[in-house]
């Protein structure tokens, strides 16, 4: 037997092979998006495609599926082979046949990825209708129910007949997985499938994908920006940047010995789960205080009263107490529906709390009317999650920055001079004043948003998921900026986040919320370092990559372990 044959026997033919893939925009002059991508995936392997926004990882996956947006992106070179089938030469009909049967895809947003006007069972069944014409409707239904069972959905008969809007995000992603795997494709492409989900749901979905992958021998191309997820699931990792593959390595080797500076930077930027030490208390003045704050939604409607139907009230937040002192950062941590944003909005008086008090600089603003509230508005300012939508695209940066101060009577010239200073403070050039938001990157826009909040000279900044939409490297810069500003101006920050890593790096105190109730509140080092409440523990245990110390390129020596007690408790708080 020749060497070649032995070699071929050792390395089975790859399921997917991409060589020299080039994609450009359709515009003239054509802008290159992918500049010669190479990688392959072996049977049963999980390859993670990692990179920051704009690196081309999603474009790569869409090119494989043949789903590049028509009229804006085109493949200009290279080849893609799925089990030896050249996909780029395949006819549209042939590609349609391969989709779902040989290669399937799940997407980031389970909330919008399903047709809202079709029952979910029918949507899964449609795959069979299109690809397995011989099946009778009873057989199809049985196959779908069996698949719903495999993705571990409860009460499958009911789920089969549900509309998408009746299911949670995690359940919808399970439906997507069922739809993708029902024909047992050789390749599953998962494009950030857990990014929009809560950590505990993310953990379950990742586990499910792993199980099904093992059962069916599927290869997985997993696209993500989250190094924690990568550390948990990847066999091999392919790092992309600006449309090129920077390096490809087995996971362990990549985390321990990254070959390139870029990968090194990416890993170093991952915030540690271990909380930083709290800063020294320099000022004891309480700038913001919540006292027994409560927000109830769904007051009894007139119709419900008329028909005598029981009112469905939701307690979005109840008995929330906290005090924030000057120059400190308090983090509110929790999953979606925990009430963390409700608290932020109540504190801002963007919505009316139904009970309790909010004191800003000692003055209760919870019950003030619109006019009486006005002088207090400027003391507390907000930074929003999505910098692409929080700046008016038709206003120059200067106009955005001075709008608030001018409303409060500052002369224009003075406000503009101050705006220029603020831009320098957040690290942007002075000429940014005359430019428009679309001329800036996401990170720069978030700096502008911070400058806009600071223009009002507030005592408190409320940051609602202010770094969640940013890439890790940019995230690290913005967090450092917030820290620096706090040191210089002494502003207090109320930081709302779902990301425990971010919370551990920026907060002095942390408050953990679940279903509208505060379950744990104290110094970050204690709450995140040695959590007592089972829910906090379950959150920490679900944090992806929690075994790894990314910035030091080694496993963590001491991690929170799943004890039988915590596991059983975690089950109480699903």
């Amino acid at each position, binding site marked *: 037997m020749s060497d070649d044959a032995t070699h071929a026997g050792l390395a089975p033919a790859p399921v997917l092979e991409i060589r020299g893939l080039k994609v450009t925009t359709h515009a003239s002059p054509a802008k290159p998006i992918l500049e010669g991508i190479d990688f392959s995936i072996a049977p049963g392997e999980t390859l993670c495609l990692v990179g920051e926004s704009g690196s081309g990882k999603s474009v790569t996956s869409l090119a494989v*599926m043949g789903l590049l947006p028509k009229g804006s992106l085109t493949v200009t070179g290279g080849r893609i082979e799925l089990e030896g089938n050249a996909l780029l030469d395949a006819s549209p009909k042939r590609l*349609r046949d391969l989709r779902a049967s040989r290669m399937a895809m799940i997407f980031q947003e389970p909330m919008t990825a*399903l047709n809202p006007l079709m029952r979910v069972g029918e949507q899964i069944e449609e795959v069979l209708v299109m690809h397995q014409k011989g099946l009778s409707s009873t057989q199809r239904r049985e196959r779908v129910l069996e698949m719903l069972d495999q993705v571990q959905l409860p009460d499958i008969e009911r789920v089969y007949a549900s509309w998408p809007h009746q299911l949670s995000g995690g359940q919808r992603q399970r439906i997507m997985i069922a739809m993708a795997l029902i024909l047992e494709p050789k390749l599953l492409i998962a494009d950030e499938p857990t990014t929009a989900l809560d950590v505990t749901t993310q953990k379950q979905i990742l586990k499910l994908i792993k199980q099904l992958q093992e059962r069916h021998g599927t290869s997985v191309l997993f696209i993500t920006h989250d190094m924690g997820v990568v550390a948990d699931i990847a066999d091999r990792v392919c790092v992309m940047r600006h449309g090129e593959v920077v390096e490809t390595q087995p996971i362990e080797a990549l985390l321990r010995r990254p070959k390139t500076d870029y990968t090194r930077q990416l890993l170093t930027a991952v915030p540690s789960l271990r909380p930083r030490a709290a800063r020294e208390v320099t000022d004891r003045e309480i700038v913001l205080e919540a006292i027994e704050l409560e927000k109830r939604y769904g007051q009894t409607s007139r119709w419900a009263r008329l028909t005598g139907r029981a009112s469905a009230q939701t307690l979005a937040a109840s008995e929330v107490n906290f005090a924030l002192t000057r120059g400190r950062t308090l983090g509110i941590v929790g999953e979606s529906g925990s009430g963390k944003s409700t608290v932020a909005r109540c504190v801002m008086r963007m919505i009316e709390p139904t009970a309790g008090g909010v004191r800003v600089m000692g003055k209760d603003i919870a019950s003030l009317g619109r006019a009486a509230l006005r002088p207090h508005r400027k003391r507390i300012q907000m930074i929003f999650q999505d910098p692409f939508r929080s700046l008016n695209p038709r206003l120059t940066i200067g106009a955005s920055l001075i709008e608030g101060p001018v409303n409060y009577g500052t002369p224009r010239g003075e406000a503009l001079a101050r705006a220029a200073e603020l831009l320098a403070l957040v690290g942007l050039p002075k000429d940014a004043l005359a430019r428009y938001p679309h001329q800036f990157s996401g990170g720069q826009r978030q700096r502008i948003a911070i400058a806009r909040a600071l223009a009002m000279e507030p005592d408190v900044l409320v940051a609602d998921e202010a770094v969640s939409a940013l890439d890790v490297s940019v995230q690290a810069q913005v967090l450092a900026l917030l820290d620096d500003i706090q040191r210089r101006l002494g502003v207090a920050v109320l930081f709302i986040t779902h990301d425990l890593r971010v919370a551990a790096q920026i907060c002095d105190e942390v408050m953990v919320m679940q279903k509208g109730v505060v379950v744990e509140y104290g110094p970050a080092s204690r709450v995140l370092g040695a959590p007592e409440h089972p829910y906090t523990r379950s959150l920490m245990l679900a944090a992806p990559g929690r075994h790894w110390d990314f910035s030091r390129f080694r496993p963590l020596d001491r991690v929170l372990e799943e004890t039988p007690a915590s596991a059983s408790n975690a089950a109480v708080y699903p």
Partner: protein
Amino acid sequence: MFSYCLRRTLAAVPVMVVVALFVFLLLRLSPGDPAAIIAGDMATPAQLDRIRETLGLNQPIYLQFFHWAGELLRGDFGTSLMSNLPVTQLMAQRLEPTVSLALLSIVLSVVVAVPMGVIAAWKHGSLIDNAVMSVSVLGFSVPVFVIGYLLIKVFAIDLGWLPVQGFKRISEAGFGPFIRHAILPALMLSTIYIALIARMTRASMLDVLGEDFVRTAHAKGASETRVLFKHALRNAGVPILEVIGTGFALMITGVVVTESVFNIPGLGRLTVDAILSRDYPVIQGLILVTSGVYVLINLAIDLSYALLDPRIRYQ
């Protein structure tokens, strides 16, 4: 679902009450003696007295309203001053031509416009798309009577395929003669709505085709037709239905020009005649009936949303 329908239906009642009140006050609050307005310049004192008597003008105004509204509920809309026939009977005679013509036109518009819009959205930016858009601009901007006379010139006079004017009722002459007489007026009536519905379909489809679930459908291996018609069109349906419904309501009330061009004895002609002869009871009846049609169509649209979209159904 049931409570949704019930709520929508009940919500239509106050609207009709307000319309009735408005129609009632229209006459009573006009300056001068309603009886004199109704009777016109040439009336004798005896005629005025008779009118005052029949309208109950000697009673307090709220009693007059309840009396009048009671008659309405019993289906009595008063008597025409010109023909001395009951208003209900006059309108009933004219209802069939107008409604059958409007129905034919709306069906024609939908059948032509929706596929046009879908294809334009699918081939967005292509030659077909541009052609559809140009045709729809034309449909908007050419006055309807010009289109009407052009149609008559080409199809009735030059080619001689269809009658020039006139109307045949389905109830009397059957479907064939009806279509022969109604097809040109329906074409004329529907141009604007074809343009409107095609544009709305295109815009709405363009939005939907950018949605994530459309990408999911492609990823499942669905064919283009399946994606367009099974997944996208239904999701694009609500705004399209809105335009179709409004279009239908506008047709019922806006057929005046078409009915004049083709000499059709419909509600439009009745309206013009009633206004020219200041036949107040007939005008009142017409306003009530057309408002009622509006309200009913709106109700039908609201209910069809619920059929289309489960998220509305389960609210």
